[in-house]
């Protein structure tokens, strides 16, 4: 009898969380895939509640909003969709080496803005003076340098003094924004608008303005995959990310790796800015990147540092962004509704990682018998 009460006093919680050993890759993706499907159904359900349309009708509007009259042979909306994916993907790819190194680069927005600024500056200043080829070359080089410089500044302080990079890069965004505001004011003659510049634009291929952008990002995706997986620098990045001490012991110059990786990250953000300015808007304003620098952080993380998975993730998120905005529009609701949906889907995906890394064990009822 006394023994029994002693056992009872030992309170055992109902559920018990255990860290899993590596679970097979396919199982992890099964969980993620299931979460995406559940999230998409949830989005449709919420849209249905808000818009008072049928469940399947909301999806129909989403599809027609994203792909337009694709089935009737019009590829115009499809290209626009691909262009949106390309920009978000390019930013996500740019952030990936930094994140793999555990360097939280929240400054994609600012780095892209600086790249865009360099592009528009060259287009306006050298547009008349240089030949087309030379102009494009100058635009590429300056915007890459501008983005890289904006990324290197926080990296230097991180490497030397271990300054918190999350907040440093965040602040750099706003400095970049104000520089753009200043430039737009001067160049626009006080009107806060720069009229689209017709020189130094990327060429249209077969009536398609966005072709160059999409191809560029496709190439960057493959190159980034190879860089991270097979290059020596990619290996150094992952070692520094895992443990800085290990990196030191095996003779990696950690400071050099941090600065170099942020130069790559910033440069790619600069390229994104260039694609936005020279390949799409032909102008600039403070809202050029439009918060995609932050969405890209989430994309890079959801993609598990794998560029090809990032393609899938960005495709889904951009689909939701455009599609749900169309659903909201069709019911005269504010298109911010799509931001809510994207937020919910990402939070669900973030949450589902738990079930991949941990397993839940319930308290066994017949414990005393087992003893």
């Amino acid at each position: 009898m006394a023994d029994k009460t002693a056992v009872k006093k030992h309170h055992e919680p109902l559920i018990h969380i255990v860290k899993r050993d590596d679970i097979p890759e396919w199982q992890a993706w099964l969980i993620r895939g299931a979460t995406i499907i559940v999230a998409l159904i949830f989005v449709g359900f919420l849209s249905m509640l808000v818009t008072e349309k049928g469940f399947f009708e909301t999806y129909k509007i989403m599809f027609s909003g994203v792909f337009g009259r694709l089935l009737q042979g019009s590829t115009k909306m499809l290209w626009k969709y691909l262009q949106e994916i390309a920009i978000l993907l390019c930013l996500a790819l740019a952030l990936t080496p930094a994140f793999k190194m555990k360097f939280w680069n929240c400054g994609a927005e600012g780095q892209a803005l600086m790249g865009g600024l360099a592009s528009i500056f060259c287009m306006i200043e050298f547009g008349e003076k240089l030949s087309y080829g030379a102009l494009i070359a100058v635009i590429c080089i300056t915007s890459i340098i501008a983005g890289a410089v904006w990324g290197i500044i926080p990296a230097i302080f991180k490497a030397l003094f271990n300054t918190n990079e999350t907040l440093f890069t965040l602040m750099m965004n706003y400095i970049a924004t104000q520089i753009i505001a200043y430039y737009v004011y001067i160049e626009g003659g006080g009107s806060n608008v720069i009229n689209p510049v017709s020189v130094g634009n990327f060429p249209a291929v077969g009536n398609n303005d966005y072709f160059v952008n999409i191809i560029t990002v496709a190439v960057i995706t493959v190159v980034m995959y190879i860089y991270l997986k097979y290059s020596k620098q990619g290996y150094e990045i992952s070692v520094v990310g895992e443990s800085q001490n290990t990196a030191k012991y095996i003779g990696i110059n950690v400071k050099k790796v941090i600065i170099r990786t942020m130069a790559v990250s910033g440069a790619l953000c600069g390229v994104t800015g260039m694609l936005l300015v020279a390949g799409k808007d032909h102008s600039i304003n403070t809202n050029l990147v439009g918060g995609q620098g932050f969405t890209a952080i989430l994309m890079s993380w959801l993609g598990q540092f794998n560029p090809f998975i990032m393609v899938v993730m960005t495709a889904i998120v951009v689909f939701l962004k455009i599609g749900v905005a169309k659903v909201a529009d069709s019911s005269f609701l504010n298109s911010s509704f799509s931001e809510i949906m994207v937020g919910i889907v990402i939070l669900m995906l973030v949450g589902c990682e738990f079930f991949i890394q941990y397993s839940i064990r319930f308290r066994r009822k017949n414990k005393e018998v087992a003893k």
Partner: protein
Amino acid sequence: MIIQFICRAILLGVPLLYGSTGEIITEKSGHLNLGIPGIMYVGAISGVVGSFIYENSCNNDIAQMNAFLAVIIPLLCAIAGSVIMGLIYCFLTVTLHANQNVTGLALTTLGIGLGNFLGASLINITKSELPSIALTKTSSFFATKLPFADKLGWFGELFFSHDFLTYLAIAVAIISAIVLNKTRVGLNLRSVGENPATADAAGINVIRYRYVATCIGSAVAGIGGLQYVMSYASGVWSNNAFGDRGWMAIALVIFALWKPSFAIVGSFVFGALCNANNYIQGLGTETQELFKMLPYVVTIIVLVITSMRKKREHQPPANLGLNYFREER
């Protein structure tokens, strides 16, 4: 002129003070909540929805409105809305061990979206011509000032002319400074942020402390959003007007070296820096744009200096940004 400048700086600084006090409380528990900008949006819009419903239930007639209800309903709504956001963050990061930066950023996306969506929906309901909702009646209750402020000249204007949310902000900051530094609860909370495994071994319920700290922090930050709408914007909500103040609040946490008492001064300095461009004579509009980067530049300088000096009491909580899993030690 100088008095006016200081009063303006205080008015601009108060939302930042709420935001950063909330974030300090959260960060002391070891959680870096980058969702604060979104939470402040949600706090603001929840308060706006609450007062919108109350104004409508009184037939938009100021004579029918009860001063106490007009203030407490938006306040409670703001707290409720932001605590729900805080709970989502806690559930994901504390219970599900999700990455804090990613969760926070997603929460910010969600919060800003919610704010703009609900704001736009309310504008739709009122069928207003302008893209904004005016809750000037509720705001007039919030703006009630101390009666003797006018009689004391510049002294009164400087110290007594503010609305009660300003004094509440300072009170909250002082109380949290005292609780963090002088009480057992504060000591426990700090130990949870510095080293959760040790705290756990000492019998402190790490999970509960993290949940409570994050939720209180979110509630405080949410009031900041409401203060912006009711006091700074005189009760007018328009989409995206709140801007990047949430990020500035997070920057202010570093500026204040994780001390709520420093945050009081810091927020007014930030308010002054944000506003300096309007008060320096002879600036062109283009130079004003450059001056607007001042608060951010100053934050970076503070960030760099604190990291260079490496003084022990000026450092962030040692376990900031790391989740705690008991079986992983």
